[in-house]
């Protein structure tokens, strides 16, 4: 009987807590612009999720929006949270990853006054949009730098899981490296998830022991493990991705492939706030200033001037739209970003 009381009390308390809430929020904030963000992982990853959270904060600071963030784990939770934000009258809800797409399609129909944006994917509707981050150009430039910096001619690539945008980013990176160094070989491994830092570290150590002296990683929180492995090994360079990861371990970081998520989020939020949102796929890459390769200023003196100059000039050509080369091998077709 005691056990029964133990179970029932918290139920009553939690239900009571939930049901008393809406009155206060609804009446106080009828007219404020409300924006929510669902991330698939922890915002402490200094990468994909952390960048999105910065985007949400930028919307809060710049547009004065009321914001809310939640970390979600399963497809069932995507649905649940999309619905709850719709029911609470949020104006704009971001699902941060391709995996949110199906849930967004379902829920957008039920809450026509809320705009759902999945940072990925291709599904669009009256109040539904996708975002396509073009990683390939910036990855190509990172490849140009890595190809010149490797002494062993072995470059490691570590991804979280084998998602199409990660794959095509790796392909562009390899193309870039091969352009400047035809002898270079690549070791590609996928950790199998995006949050196991110790597995990320293991993969990095394995690649280093096979001769890799430059490692490019795109593995969110698991990628922090790659940084740990680099810290323990002198003479190995790392390239970060998604957020500016140049400050995690500056002395051995060449640079980062940075998505300027705040810029992308603001761009979309402004359209929604002004009321001229149109459901389509926002294609955002180097030309839009949303994705770029950012060299690490701390190690400028260790990088040959010609290497930095080449990377710079190609990046400028790309953003001006005058770059004529192809950043992907002929075999790979362009696919939507994560």
């Amino acid at each position, binding site marked *: 009987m005691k056990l029964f009381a133990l179970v029932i009390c*918290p139920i009553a308390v939690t239900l009571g807590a939930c049901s008393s809430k809406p009155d206060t929020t609804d009446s106080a904030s009828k007219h404020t612009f409300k924006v929510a963000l669902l991330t698939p992982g922890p915002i402490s990853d200094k990468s994909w999720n952390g960048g999105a959270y910065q985007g949400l904060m930028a919307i809060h600071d710049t547009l004065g929006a009321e914001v*809310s963030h939640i970390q979600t784990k399963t497809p069932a939770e995507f649905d649940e949270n999309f619905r709850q934000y719709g029911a609470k009258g949020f104006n704009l809800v971001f699902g941060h990853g391709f995996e949110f797409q199906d849930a967004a399609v379902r829920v957008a129909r039920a809450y026509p006054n809320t705009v759902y944006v999945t940072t990925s994917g291709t599904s669009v509707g009256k109040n539904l949009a996708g975002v396509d981050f073009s990683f390939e150009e910036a990855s190509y430039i990172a490849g140009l730098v890595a190809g010149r910096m490797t002494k062993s001619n072995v470059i490691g690539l570590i991804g979280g899981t084998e998602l199409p945008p990660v794959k095509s980013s790796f392909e562009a990176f390899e193309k870039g490296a091969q352009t400047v160094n035809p002898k270079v070989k690549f070791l590609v491994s996928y950790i199998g998830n995006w949050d196991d830092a110790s597995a990320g570290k293991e993969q990095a150590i394995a690649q280093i022991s096979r001769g890799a002296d430059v490692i490019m990683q795109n593995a969110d929180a698991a990628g922090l493990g790659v940084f740990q492995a680099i810290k323990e090994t002198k003479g190995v360079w790392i390239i970060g991705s998604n957020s500016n990861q140049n400050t995690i371990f500056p002395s051995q970081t060449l640079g980062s492939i940075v998505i300027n998520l705040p810029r992308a989020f603001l761009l979309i939020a402004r359209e929604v706030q002004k009321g001229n949102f149109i459901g389509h796929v926002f294609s955002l890459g180097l030309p839009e200033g949303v994705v770029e390769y950012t060299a690490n200023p701390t190690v400028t003196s260790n990088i040959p001037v010609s290497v930095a100059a080449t990377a710079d000039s190609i990046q400028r050509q790309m953003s001006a739209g005058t770059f004529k080369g192809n950043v992907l091998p002929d075999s790979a077709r362009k696919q939507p970003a994560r």
Partner: protein
Amino acid sequence: MADITLLADALVRSTPLILAGLAVALAFRGGVFNLGAEGQLMMGAAASAAISIKLAPLMGPSVIVVSLGGGAVAGALWAGIAAELKRRFHVLEIISTIMLNFIAIHLVSFLVRGPMQEPTRIYPQTESLADSARLPIIIPGTRLHAGLILAVLLAVCLHWIFKHTAAGFRVRALGAGPNAARSAGQIDIAVLSWRVFVMSGAIAGLAGAIEVSGVTFALYENISPGYGYTAIAVALIAGLNPLGVIASGVFFGVLETAALALQRDFGIPSSIASMVEALLILVTLALAGLRGYLAFLAPRERTA
């Protein structure tokens, strides 16, 4: 409006917990330490998704029955591997079921990137289920689906079987003392524990099938946030009582849904729910341990 959807979401989340909790409760009652509900659930989800996608165009609404049945069979087969290993080679099921969980998770991960991947071959998931293969919604405007009714019915059935049938009594006897069950009760314990094991797997498989047909409408690799593991807590807190599993399943569902609501509305980290869950399990185990300790002390005092 927000309230009813919130309550519905809590019940949606409770459904797999109740079902997997029943699977664990049945196994533990029969003295089988099936820690593999997670893997059995994944296999049930995979089989159910495959059946729904392949057969929905041919069968119409009756496909749902076949797909749920298929999920249960897949769960039973997956548990059957561990059950056979136990019967033939005396492999401890505590180890084999946990190992099989990892295999199931990676198998699903392979399936959604290989043979079962959606037609555009971009995303690691299957195509979406046809409307006819989806469980009906019982409160319009919410996500609450008929799976909850199935879960509650199954709990009531199991309770009745345990209480009122010879088979139920045999299972309880097996769990309470296998040697006594064999010598005094003339029970073939190897066969009975094999059956309990497989039945438990079937229920866990059904949980996965219902999750696919009622909630996600496609197979994804991270379809379960660890329902099969939380189910062990659900079953233990319920004292392995099937009706209690309904209460503790709903409790965990409400707890996790409320935790998400707290993070959405107040920015309180939802991981607090996991801490509360872990504390509850510790308290329950401590209480059970304390009760056993007191019972152990009492007669000694008398004889002394």
